[in-house]
């Protein structure tokens, strides 16, 4: 199989007058090369990046621990004709994704140089700043549809707060991003200053799958295969939902909005049932919780839809959506990754126009104040 598919952009894709302009809550821009960051990175850290590279808790410097199903996890037809990796060419992103799908707003999620998990905290602070500046200069300022997130390494809380404040002063960023695979579960006290600041600033907290927290991807140890590791992302998100709720983060920061990104939403209903089921038994351990866990979920959390579940029967997807709640769902494509969801076909169950509008547009506009 060739590494790259040179797929023509179909006429109907290019011209489809979609009935609805969409908000895509998960688009991955990519560095064309690391040199793109030089203008935002002090000389010392440019040299560090060249000499030592990034330091993550993973065995390889040149690839992911579990080889993906396609080169750098991307659609084979998403390689820009101008060279560089998928997601690195704005013109091609417009042509392949933003224009044909009539994306009104696209929210950027940067995974390059995974800043959240850098072991060298000073280096992490320098590149998080560079990445945040690069998002504006290379993307948001070049296409008004694209919106940047403030990426911060959650485990150096002091540096994270400084970076949040620096970015927030620009008024250009729409959320604060941290990683679901951190040194500790995200509900723990060490991370609360970030939540406090997010609440003060009125910025949602975005948590996108991925990261190198140092823990095995499952509670039973390290799996052998990518198909196991890939599914563990949903488990990570469910565990973080429980950590945040049970530690009382929504109780302590009642105005905080939390968006789970690329976790899908299949697991949410049973996560709420399980938390509620055992609440009575564990209540004496967590007296700080004033309400049933599902009530916090249904007020404080939103979930992007990709990768959407595909039950054999359409009615099962419908039941799931009703359990989770239409109000909680934000459409996302994950462009240009291999498990991308196509806005036209992702929901294999009928939705009313009102429901469609909420999932594809108005829920996100409200959460992100777009």
């Amino acid at each position, binding site marked *: 199989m060739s590494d790259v598919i040179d797929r023509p952009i179909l006429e109907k894709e290019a011209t489809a007058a979609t009935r609805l302009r969409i908000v895509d809550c998960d688009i991955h821009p990519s560095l064309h090369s690391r040199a793109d960051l030089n203008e935002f990175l002090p000389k010392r850290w440019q040299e560090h990046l060249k000499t030592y590279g990034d330091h993550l808790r993973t065995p390889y410097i040149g690839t992911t621990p579990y080889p993906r199903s396609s080169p750098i996890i991307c659609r084979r037809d998403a390689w820009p004709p101008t060279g560089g990796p998928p997601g690195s060419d704005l013109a091609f992103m417009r042509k392949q994704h933003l224009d044909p799908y009539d994306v009104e707003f696209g929210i950027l999620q940067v995974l390059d140089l995974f800043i959240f998990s850098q072991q060298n905290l000073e280096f992490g602070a320098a590149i998080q700043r560079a990445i945040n500046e690069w998002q504006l200069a290379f993307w948001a300022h070049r296409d008004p549809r694209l919106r940047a997130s403030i990426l911060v390494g959650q485990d150096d809380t002091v540096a994270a707060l400084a970076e949040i404040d620096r970015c927030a002063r620009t008024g250009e960023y729409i959320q604060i991003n941290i990683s679901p695979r*951190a040194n500790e579960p995200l509900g723990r006290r060490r991370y609360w200053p970030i939540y406090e600041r997010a609440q003060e600033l009125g910025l949602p907290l975005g948590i996108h799958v991925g990261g190198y927290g140092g823990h095995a991807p*499952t509670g039973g140890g390290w799996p052998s295969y990518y198909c196991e590791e890939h599914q563990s992302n949903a488990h990570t998100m469910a565990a973080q939902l429980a950590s945040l709720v049970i530690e009382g983060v929504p109780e302590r920061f009642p105005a905080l909005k939390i968006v789970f990104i690329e976790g899908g939403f299949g697991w949410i209903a*049973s996560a709420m049932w399980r938390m509620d089921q*055992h609440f009575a038994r*564990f209540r004496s351990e967590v007296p700080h919780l004033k309400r049933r866990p599902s009530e916090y979920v249904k007020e404080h959390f939103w979930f992007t839809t990709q*990768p959407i*579940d595909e039950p054999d029967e359409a009615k099962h997807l419908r039941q799931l959506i009703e359990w989770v709640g239409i109000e909680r769902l934000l459409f996302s494509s994950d462009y240009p990754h291999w498990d991308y969801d196509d806005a036209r076909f992702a929901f294999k169950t009928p939705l009313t126009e009102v429901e469609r509008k909420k999932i594809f547009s108005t829920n996100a506009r409200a959460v992100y104040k777009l």
Partner: protein
Amino acid sequence: MAVTRIDCDIHPAVGGTRTTLLPYLDDHWKEQVVSRAIDGLDLTSYPPNMPLSGRPDWRPKGGKPGSDLGMVQKGAFDQLGASHAICNVLYGAQAVYDPYMASAFCKAINDWIAAEWLSADSRLRASIVVPMQAPDLAVEEIERRAGDSRFVSILVLAQGETLLGRRHFWPVYQAAEKYQLPLAIHAGSAYRFAPSSIGWPSHRYEYYFVEAQAFQAQILSLIYEGVFGKFPNLKVVLMESGVTWLPAFMWRANKTWRGVRVEVPWVEREPASIIRDHIRVTMQPFDAPPDRTGVEDVVDQIGSDKMFLFASDYPHWQFDGDDAIPPHLPQHIVSRMCVDNPLETFPRLKLAA
């Protein structure tokens, strides 16, 4: 007895190695446990005083929940209406680091449960506790106990030293298949890894929540490593795993497999269909949706009436009252889960002892 109803998950408690198990240890380990005070191996997963570990009316005075045979008989049989029950001992042998010590404690537990429980009440059966820390010793223990038909399954923890599909465990599954012993995976951790990928939680409540994920990881490991292809007659029972996560888990597994199956070409059909054929699940806790329709929808989504096994999880406090069957289950599920499914899942479960 009026009705046949097989309770697939009850928990007799071991008092300690220097007390309950001492008569069942050989001279070397007798000397070791006494002179080194090797005791107190109750799992961190189930502190005895925690509400979940024992329903208030099932707590004996002065002992751990599940430690008093008379009380267990009264609760599991008289009160909850079981005709037979499978004992799953959760004392910490499976979490010991020294493989020889682990093996000695597993033997002692198995000999103790046979002598003091199975022989005392013909309605009781048990799982063989095995030292998965050393798969060869686990096989030895299975061989040693396989002649006793009152042992009907092999008990392992949901969170051990490595995921259960890995090749070094396959001799255990070969023995399991040979003796028609399903692999019973029970909630509980050896604490080798953080309970989930996010790290060490603050609360027991979070820990208990994420245990459901460990079961899901074990299913994926068993499927993708090819265990069910290699051992087509092996059945796996999830005990105290929760149930209602199954549909969304199966959907995601199918979708991921469709996208990535190139790396596991030996897995030739959808994970959900492998799950329906090989995985069984005990029904406490169920983690139910709040309404009847929700329960019916979840059961419909799971798409099998063969997977469910009646269980009370005695003496764990999963429900109040005398009915261990979760509310709103469709009648065809209830009738299968109490007798037919347990008999199919545990072929050694001959009802006349």
